[in-house]
């Protein structure tokens, strides 16, 4: 439970603090961000800013000479699939914690212009951040939300996913924060396809045929050869997971949406850890690489699982 006296400016965090900053316009963005970044530098924190490029450049210019002490990451690059972002923060946190430094981060995954499916994954990502880092080293992560340009549902959702909400003027606990929301979000049913769906069932002997089928479909959709190869690999990994961990068989479904080719694998297994595939596997681990690799290679990946079964939807932008 975050209490008010823990939120005073300049206070050194004693736990992971995950905060949504709501802003309107560039001046308000800077009014919220500049004090946060400069305070971090004064406290000798390692400050890492992950913003889409226009906002990143705006902040860098406004920081002037201080920008040299800040590490900037392009959120449109590291967060193209939001399921990759926790891995970036985890690696960054681990590196600096080992070096005896404290981390202070800025991350704006839900930036204007993203598609509805991306916003859905951003919301799940924000929820999972709490689970990923609540029990680890103390650090602060500030997530800006553009109230002028984002859909209302996205900014409202941020109140449920962040324990702390702030503006350039104040910083308070979010009364809407749902610490247990991750279970429901991870178990949610994804929107059904509205167009024709090609689907088939596969078993243990069908992995090569399944990946070939997905590759053929991807080619027919006009995807580039690089995208086809990535989807073929993803199909092999996900179908293998269904065989190994999902009851020994599964279903593959493929369809087109506006601007996207979609491939979805479903099986009767239950992925009990919603953070599956978000952290880079240890170098000496034997398994557990498939979903991580799919997250890293594919444009957007939506994993949902409950006792009813598991679906993992891979979206490739056309």
């Amino acid at each position, binding site marked *: 439970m975050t209490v008010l006296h823990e939120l005073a400016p300049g206070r050194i965090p004693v736990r992971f603090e995950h905060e949504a900053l709501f802003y309107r316009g560039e001046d308000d963005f800077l009014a919220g961000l500049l004090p946060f970044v400069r305070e971090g530098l004064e406290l000798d924190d390692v400050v890492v800013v992950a913003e889409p490029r226009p906002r990143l450049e705006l902040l860098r210019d406004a920081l002037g000479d201080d920008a040299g002490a800040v590490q900037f990451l392009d959120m449109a690059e590291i967060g193209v699939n939001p399921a990759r972002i926790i891995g970036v923060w985890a690696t960054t946190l681990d590196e600096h914690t080992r070096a005896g430094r404290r981390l202070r981060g800025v991350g704006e995954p839900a930036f204007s212009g993203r598609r509805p499916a991306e916003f859905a994954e951003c919301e799940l990502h924000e929820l999972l951040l709490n689970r990923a880092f609540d029990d680890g080293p103390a650090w602060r992560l500030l997530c800006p939300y553009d109230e002028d340009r984002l859909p209302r549902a996205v900014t409202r959702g941020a109140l449920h996913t962040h324990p702390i909400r702030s503006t350039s003027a104040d910083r308070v606990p979010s009364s809407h924060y749902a610490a247990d929301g991750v279970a429901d979000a991870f178990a949610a049913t994804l929107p059904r396809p509205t167009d024709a769906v090609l689907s088939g069932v596969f078993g*243990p002997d069908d*992995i*090569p045929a399944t*990946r070939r089928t997905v590759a053929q479909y991807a080619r027919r959709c006009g995807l580039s050869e*690089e995208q086809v*190869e*990535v989807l*073929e*690999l993803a199909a*092999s*990994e996900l179908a*293998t997971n269904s065989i*190994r961990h999902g009851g020994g068989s599964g279903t593959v479904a493929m369809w087109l949406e506006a601007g996207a080719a979609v491939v979805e694998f479903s099986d009767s297994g239950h992925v009990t850890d919603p953070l599956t595939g978000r952290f*880079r*596997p240890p*170098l*000496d681990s*034997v*398994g557990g*690489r*498939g979903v*991580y*690799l799919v997250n*890293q*290679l594919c444009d957007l990946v939506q994993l949902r699982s409950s006792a009813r079964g598991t679906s993992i939807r891979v979206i490739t932008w056309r």
Partner: protein
Amino acid sequence: MRAHGVLSGFPAAGTSDHVCWVYDDDAAFGAAVREFLIGGLERGERLLCVGERVIDSLRGQLPPFGDIDALIADGTLETLTLAQAYEAAGPFGPANLLGYYDSATRRALDAGFRGLRVIAEVTALAADPSVRPELVRWEHVADDYIAQGTGFTAMCAYSGELTREALADVAAVHPLVHGPDGVPSFRVFFDDDRLVLAGSVDTFGADRLARVLATSPVAGDGAVLDLSLAEFVDVTACRVLAQWARDLQDRDLDVEVRNASPLLRRMWRILALDEFVPVQFAGAAA
């Protein structure tokens, strides 16, 4: 690159043939024996037939095998039952077999032949799970010897009644394979100074690849693996390659990977396998 591929018909005889031929019945087996040996005769090679089934199939063959006894008498054709072969080479294992076939090849060359062409029917060895690993090791070592241009060529015949697992194990270490559809999914063979991985390796074949690589002979300072014929390599297979490189590194041997696809190299970076083991990538991929 030496002759390689999945065969639908019988290939023309070449200087470094190493064929795995899976047959369905006596007629198919006899035809394969005939084709392989005719290629050897035309090339001026000595023929060595190993296994009772091969010897039996020679009888009743059409010319030029009409007079088997004459071919045996002039030293062109030699036969060994499996028992005789074991007796001649000593206990079954790659070192003994290599020594035996190296001597036999040299004798053939010294006698004026262009090489030694061996056909062996070794289904019984592949069928025995306790012997099969040594058989696979021997096949792989033999492939290295063949690839060096020693004059030794071979066809290894296996009955299609073997399990798919057994067939995949033995077929995977031949450059030329005639087998059931989809068997093997990948092949590992030697070409000049390098090892070539051809075909597709996924999670379900990765253990087999690991077994082959673990016993693969390495000469000089290290190994070179050519992936130009690799059609598909998944995460588990990538991990197998990295573990192989790590094991060689522990023996102070380097690994160079040539012609890896851009996707494989991307996968390698994503999985941080370059932190697990230093591997030099060269060729093709951007």
